[in-house]
């Protein structure tokens, strides 16, 4: 057992277990994070393979296994973090699902007469889109009559959501303003979205639902993550190009025989010389 004790810089007596506890996690937590950041991307990418390949066949059962594994490890971990992340993940999937369905109905349920969705479904799409924002707002505000309570860590999620919403809207405004060819409805929509996001964040800060520190942390994470993604993508692409350029070309067909080479030369000479074959 890690029982030996020592004094920290503030004079508090600490055990070695306390120190290691900050760095190491229990087996279930380690399995949860591995499944989340390695297992899930790995199984989801199997969907991109050819439909008759072994990878594509294994996509559904493996994804299901990874999801079950995430659930089991999140609930059996001693630490609270996997459970918090899993719960927020469930809420997020539900909200993104409604949003994706609403967008699908809005995009394909109108203009084109040969679209995959009947024309009248656009109203349902707009209702679903609106309900996404309402659900997010209600979960964050947490009124007493609401039967559903937001999971732990939700204020951090909400603050990041607001930062993501406002930042993307402002970037969208600039893009539509410069390249939008007079799409004024879209521009007004983006201005409204960013204004509502800012107003919402100010109201939530006023009422103490989210703190300015959480907004500050979310902004730092947003900038840092963007820089990190750009840096990692550049280095990863450079690495892949380097490895792929040195890779041997796979043999996909037999090389040409002498007879075929002769025939090819004949054809080329005929075509270059302008004579009839």
């Amino acid at each position, binding site marked *: 057992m890690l029982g030996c004790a020592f004094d920290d810089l503030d004079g508090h007596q600490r055990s070695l277990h306390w120190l290691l506890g900050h760095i190491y996690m229990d087996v279930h937590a380690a399995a949860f994070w591995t499944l989340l950041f390695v297992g899930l991307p790995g199984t989801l990418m199997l969907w991109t393979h050819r439909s008759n390949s072994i990878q594509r066949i294994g996509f559904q059962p493996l994804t299901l296994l990874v999801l079950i594994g995430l659930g089991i490890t999140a609930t059996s971990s001693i*630490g609270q973090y996997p459970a918090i992340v899993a719960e927020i993940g469930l809420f997020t999937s539900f909200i993104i699902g409604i949003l994706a369905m609403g967008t699908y109905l809005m995009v394909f349920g109108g203009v084109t007469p040969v679209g995959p969705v009947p024309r009248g479904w656009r109203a349902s799409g707009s209702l679903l889109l609106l309900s996404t924002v309402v659900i997010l707002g209600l979960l964050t505000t947490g009124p007493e009559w609401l039967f559903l309570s937001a999971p732990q860590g939700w204020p951090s999620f909400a603050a990041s959501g607001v930062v993501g919403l406002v930042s993307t809207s*402002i970037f969208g405004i600039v893009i539509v303003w410069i390249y939008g060819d007079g799409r004024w409805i879209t521009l007004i929509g983006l201005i409204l979205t960013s204004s509502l996001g800012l107003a919402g964040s100010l109201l939530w800060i006023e009422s103490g639902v989210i703190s300015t520190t959480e907004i500050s942390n979310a902004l730092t994470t947003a900038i840092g993550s963007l820089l990190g993604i750009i840096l990692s993508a550049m280095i990863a692409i450079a690495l892949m190009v380097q490895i792929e350029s040195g890779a041997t070309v796979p043999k996909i067909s037999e090389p040409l025989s002498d007879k075929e080479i002769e025939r090819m030369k004949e054809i080329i000479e005929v075509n270059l010389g302008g004579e009839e074959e």
Partner: protein
Amino acid sequence: MSMRRLAGAGLGAAIVVITLFTMVEGEASPVFDERLLSIAVQALWTAMMVWLILAGSMLGLIMRGRAPLLQIFGLLFLSLSTLGILAIIGEIPTEETLATLTIQWAGLATGAFIVFGYTLSTLTASLEEEEDPLLILGRKQN
């Protein structure tokens, strides 16, 4: 679409976003040096995780020769090297950091996705009714 113009527009938008949120933060806004250091550490954490996720997502290609294997090991090496750098500077991510980052990434992605959904919807809703050219052709023949 000129890349220079796009980069300028992006930079302008970034300045607007940072100014707006600095105003929202008010007194909670950290000093410049602190924020710069936090951003650098966040960038390293993100790069480490992105390389790990990329390596994980390439696992299905293992059977396709030496190149994918080399790429997976290369990405894992980059990820572990970043972890080493973080350990040297004393910013090794704890489980709490990992959880907070995951929640914040989920929040940022949800916010961005809401904007994409609404923008796509307004773009298609603002289009006028259009007719399928094949249907028009058929009508003329009749």
